[in-house]
């Protein structure tokens, strides 16, 4: 059930981003399959959402071969929850042989044994391995309301296990609660991480993309939340990750990790056929441009 390729609503009026060269490749190794059912998920991942499937090691190798030919600089393994993929560790090893990797996770599979294996894999590569753990607030009151009871404490446990293995994880916090912008919860959280052996954690604040589950939790995009040609600059467009990145799922190659459920976000079957301009006609494009966010670490 592949969608049409490159059919972009409003393409004649929206700005278009040039493809400067493929630096970043996102691999949806777990598709839309996740152990959680977060109420704000922009692609509505859940244990039973198989709209994008698990990627096999063999499929990953095919993508890596093409990525090498195109000179890709960095890789991101995501989903869904990547650790739900039983081949994740060999996938990680294969990818890390080719370049630096960031694995995005909700942190719930980061037990002591797994973190030990991750350390061994990291030490066996010339390239950097980053673990990026996602939170939805500075404490359980916000996080668990989105992700389910007890998930905050388990996530912190995973972060501690990473710290015990000398990882300095990147911790992303979604602007899902007003408290994320405040300093009180943040400083309490930082103190807590300091006590776990992470005195200087790497934090990344992410905006909400009002699509998928989030569109029904609070609201979707308003008609005015679209980019117009006169509201953008060349510099601003060049900073967007879609100018240097592409995303692969089991259903094809997409412009970015956010638009994998938008038919127009699908650009082709192979990476080499998707290195062309893309029309920024979606509300999510407005969020990326206005907030200046990039999904990259």
């Amino acid at each position, binding site marked *: 059930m592949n969608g049409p390729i490159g059919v972009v609503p409003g393409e004649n009026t929206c700005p278009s981003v040039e493809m400067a060269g493929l630096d970043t490749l996102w691999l949806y190794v777990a598709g839309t399959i996740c152990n959680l059912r977060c109420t704000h998920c922009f692609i509505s991942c859940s244990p039973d959402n198989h709209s994008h499937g698990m990627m096999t090691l063999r499929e990953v190798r095919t993508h890596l071969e093409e990525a090498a030919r195109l000179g890709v600089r960095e890789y991101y393994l995501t989903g869904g929850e990547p650790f739900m993929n039983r081949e994740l560790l060999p996938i990680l090893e294969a990818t890390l042989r080719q370049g630096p990797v960031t694995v995005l996770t909700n942190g719930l599979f980061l037990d002591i044994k797994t973190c030990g294996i991750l350390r061994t894999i*990291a030490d066996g590569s010339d*390239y950097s391995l980053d673990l990026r753990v996602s939170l939805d607030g500075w404490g359980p009151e916000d996080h668990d309301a989105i992700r389910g009871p007890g998930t905050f404490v388990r996530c912190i446990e995973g972060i501690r296990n990473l710290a015990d293995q000398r990882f300095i994880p990147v911790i992303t916090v979604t602007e899902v609660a007003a408290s994320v912008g405040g300093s009180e919860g943040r400083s309490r959280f930082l103190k807590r991480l300091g006590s776990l052996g992470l005195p200087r954690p790497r934090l990344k604040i992410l905006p909400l993309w009002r699509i998928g589950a989030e569109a029904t939790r609070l609201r979707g995009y308003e008609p005015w939340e679209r980019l117009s040609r006169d509201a953008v600059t060349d510099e601003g467009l060049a900073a967007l990750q879609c100018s240097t990145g592409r995303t692969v799922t089991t259903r094809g190659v997409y412009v970015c990790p956010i638009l994998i459920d938008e038919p127009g976000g699908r650009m082709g079957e192979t990476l080499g056929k998707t290195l062309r301009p893309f029309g920024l006609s979606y509300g999510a494009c407005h969020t990326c441009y206005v907030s200046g966010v990039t999904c990259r670490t």
Partner: protein
Amino acid sequence: MNPAPSPSPLARAAFFGGVYSNYLALEAAIGDALRRGAQALFCLGDLGGFGPHPAKVPSLLRQHGVMVVQGNYEDSVGHDRDDCQCGYTDPRDNLFAQVAYDYTRANTPAEVKAWYRTLPATARLTMGGRRLLLCHGSPRRQNEFLWKSTSPVPFLERLLRDHAADVIVCTHTGLHWDRVLPSGGQVINVGALGRPANDGNTHVWYALLTVGTGGAGTAGLQVDFIPVAYDHERLARDMRQERLPEEFVETILTGWWTTCLEILPAREREAGRF
């Protein structure tokens, strides 16, 4: 001896990375490179920032005929821009970067700023029949960070292909490394003279390239990274007199980076103390 590039083929040349106003290290490195027989000296930019008395480094470079490629610092200071364009993304990194930049900009003479504006963003030369491309960050962006752990082989091959070079010589990260590629190409990050390499040692580094002795079975240039000891305690005294942040002084005295850490990739960050 005139170390400027001569019409005769270059057999040995020295390449200095970010100097960050560390005039004492630069002085020591120039002397060391000439003693080792370098026929030409090159500096890949970021002459200011971090250290004291920013007029001293450009003066030394011109006095010794060092060929200079423009770094983001020279672009910013030369054009009196508001920030250094270092490319940091973390607030703490940016805070310290701004302190260093404001000091450097305020203490750089107008005549030096004018010179900065004339510097080339890239330069090309030939050594041993190989086409070298000199740049500050990367050939495609002045402030791009080419770290060893995030610059994989296919990506570097692409840079060489796209920019018609056999060897890329760069700096900007402050950490030295080199990679010989399957194609025979080479990428060399010469490190920095401005501050130590985040390894607990107080010396700094430059790169010496020599033709005809390509080791390890390669036909490439031999790359020697040279540690340079200098009077780092004197530099620390200068920095304190100029009221530069104690965090900067600590790095000079201990060899561990205390600022601009967040930009480090995981591998390089894990190797440091902080």
